[in-house]
């Protein structure tokens, strides 16, 4: 029964398993759908869908299967999806900018829809198709997804209408797949303490037996120290403009690190593009939140594991020149590279996580490749993905 609905769901990206499908069949045989489509809608959702982030995909699949209508809004969403995977923005000249200004909104939208119909996939760069990094009108921000919302009035609440309303659009987050995996990867970052320090809160069985025997059989409990994770972590994040495109990914990592309760200590610092005299305790890298990098190095002992998150892409001058810092307020007397080297030397274990995919780390394919190459000489660099994080954790655990 409804086998195609199962495949429809999987096509829409809802992770349905056979176990759940059999549960649904069991429920149907017990008559729990109350012989109505809306009954079936809720029943199938409650049994098959296990996260509110998939409710929207479920609605789409339900709609497709039971009505066979295609939603233009979906196509728009697809386009927005393409736009998320940005390559760094292109600089545009004033003449070009003038060209853009002559467009009015309605025309823009009409043309977007037109183009959506003809475009067949992701497209980055270039000047016509929807994508990022190019000159297309449909690449930069400004297109409002809410404007093309579809879905009927909710009057009689028939199931297909509820599905068509797609009320769970807001919960959709195809990006959330990471947090748990990140957490699991981070759990491996542990190194147990020796039994020298810590609370005595674990029963030492051998010791107890020994002591009790010495005590002529009268029970004497001996407590030992439980072994705890001894790893201390300092996380430094680039919060500069070029990182904006990766803000989702970075916040996933941030959440995962923050939730990891197994570190002995955890510190967060921020910088803008490159580390200079100051690091910051707040993502807004302004002087109010500044900490002298020298003080930072004094306070954070070399045993800390340093994880730097940044795209490592900047103008070469920011890295190699005195006074090259991107912020006007900073007049760095030493080039950024010197500071980075200082960090790399101070910490015995340090890694750099880069949200830019590894295939772009080459100066020949991407303008930031040059500085990436320079920084890779100082820090082992890994992609900011679950795999990359796992490799980084391995690197951080290695003893010398």
């Amino acid at each position, binding site marked *: 029964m409804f086998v195609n609905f199962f495949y429809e769901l999987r096509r829409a990206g809802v992770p349905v398993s056979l176990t759940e499908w059999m549960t649904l069949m069991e429920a149907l045989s017990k008559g729990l759908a109350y012989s109505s489509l809306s009954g079936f809608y*809720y029943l199938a959702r*409650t049994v098959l869908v296990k996260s509110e982030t998939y409710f929207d995909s479920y609605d789409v699949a339900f709609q497709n299967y039971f009505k066979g209508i295609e939603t233009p809004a979906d196509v728009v969403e697809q386009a927005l999806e393409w736009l998320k995977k940005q390559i760094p923005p292109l600089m545009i000249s004033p003449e070009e900018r003038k060209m853009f200004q002559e467009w009015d909104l309605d025309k823009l939208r009409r043309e977007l829809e037109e183009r959506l119909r003809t475009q067949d996939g992701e497209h980055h760069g270039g000047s016509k198709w929807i994508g990022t990094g190019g000159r297309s009108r449909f690449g930069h921000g400004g297109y409002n997804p809410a404007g093309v919302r579809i879905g009927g009035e909710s009057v009689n609440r028939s199931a297909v209408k509820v599905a068509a309303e797609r009320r769970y659009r807001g919960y959709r987050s195809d990006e959330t797949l990471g947090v748990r995996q990140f957490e699991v990867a981070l759990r491996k970052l542990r190194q147990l303490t020796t039994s020298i320090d810590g609370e005595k809160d674990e029963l030492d069985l051998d010791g107890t037996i020994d002591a009790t025997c010495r005590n002529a059989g009268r029970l004497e409990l001996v407590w030992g120290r439980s072994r705890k994770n001894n790893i201390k972590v300092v996380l430094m994040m680039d919060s500069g403009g070029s990182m904006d495109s990766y803000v989702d990914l970075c916040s996933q990592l941030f959440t995962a690190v923050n939730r990891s309760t197994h570190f002995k200590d955890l510190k967060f610092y921020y910088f803008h593009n490159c580390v200079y005299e100051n690091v910051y305790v707040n993502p807004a890298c302004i002087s109010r939140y500044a900490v002298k990098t020298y003080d930072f190095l004094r306070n954070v002992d070399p045993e800390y594991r340093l994880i730097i998150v940044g795209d490592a892409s900047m103008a070469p001058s920011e890295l190699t020149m005195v006074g090259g810092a991107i912020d006007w307020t900073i007049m760095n007397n030493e080039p950024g590279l010197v500071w980075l080297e200082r960090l790399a030397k101070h910490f015995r274990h340090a890694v750099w996580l880069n949200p830019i995919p590894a295939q772009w780390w080459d100066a020949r394919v991407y303008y930031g490749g040059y500085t990436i190459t320079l920084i890779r000489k100082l820090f082992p660099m890994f992609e900011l993905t679950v795999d990359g994080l796992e490799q980084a954790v391995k690197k951080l655990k290695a003893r010398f």
Partner: protein
Amino acid sequence: MELQEFKGTSNYIVSEDLRNSVNVSIALGRPLLIKGEPGTGKTMLARSIAEGLGLRLIVWNIKSTTKAQDGLYIYDTVQRLYDSQFGDHDVSDISQYIKMGKLGEAFLSEEPVVLLIDEIDKADLEFPNDLLWELDMMSFYIPETGVTITAKHRPIVIITSNAEKELPDAFLRRCIFHYINFPEPEMMANIIKVHHPDLEDRLINEAMEAFYWIRSLSGLQKRPSTSELLDWVQALTVGGISVDRIRKEIPLLGVLIKKNQDFDVILKRLNAQNTSKTRVRGQTLWG
């Protein structure tokens, strides 16, 4: 024993789809996993189910240190050792040192019960995985005594989560899932009326308008939820605040808002709103 259907109770308003989910989970004998914003009545649901069906409620509160084992049983070895010291106790019977946890208690109960596993996401990452077998088979084995504890009646298991941690897939597959939506204004009015039946409509309307206005503000750290609205309405009536002041000043804001920064945000907006009513709010951002 055939369990009857859950229809909601007089002091807990349940939406149609939530009611369906509860009944599906009861009929299939699967745990019901409830997610939703804090304060949307996840925990209250279990109480309501227990009350509505006339069953005993067993609550297992999960903390960050809770282990799956704690819910099954605890073997008090230290007590047994002490008891064995002077030979005045018979310690050969290990079962007297086995203490049932909440899950064990639910399994052993003579009549069907509702078991609430509250805030499962507080526990360690692996916690839900450790309970898979027990929740699936509704039984567990005690190696110390060689006894297998099997549920006399399959308990109705309600699990709540605040989504602080993501739950493992294997666990999710075995659950029935329901997400409690934030109530629509209409539903909210009903909820308030259930809790405070004597209030005049005007007060409810004003309070709700202020409440939804606050929730619509961007940049809040923690948006107020149903339970806070209920407290606030209570505070407004007890404090004898006149209805006209509610929307304009939002008195007793501390009941609704729990974060300092949010306080500032709301007061600032409120001032801006009161001084220039004509200003157009909500500019569209293009580009």
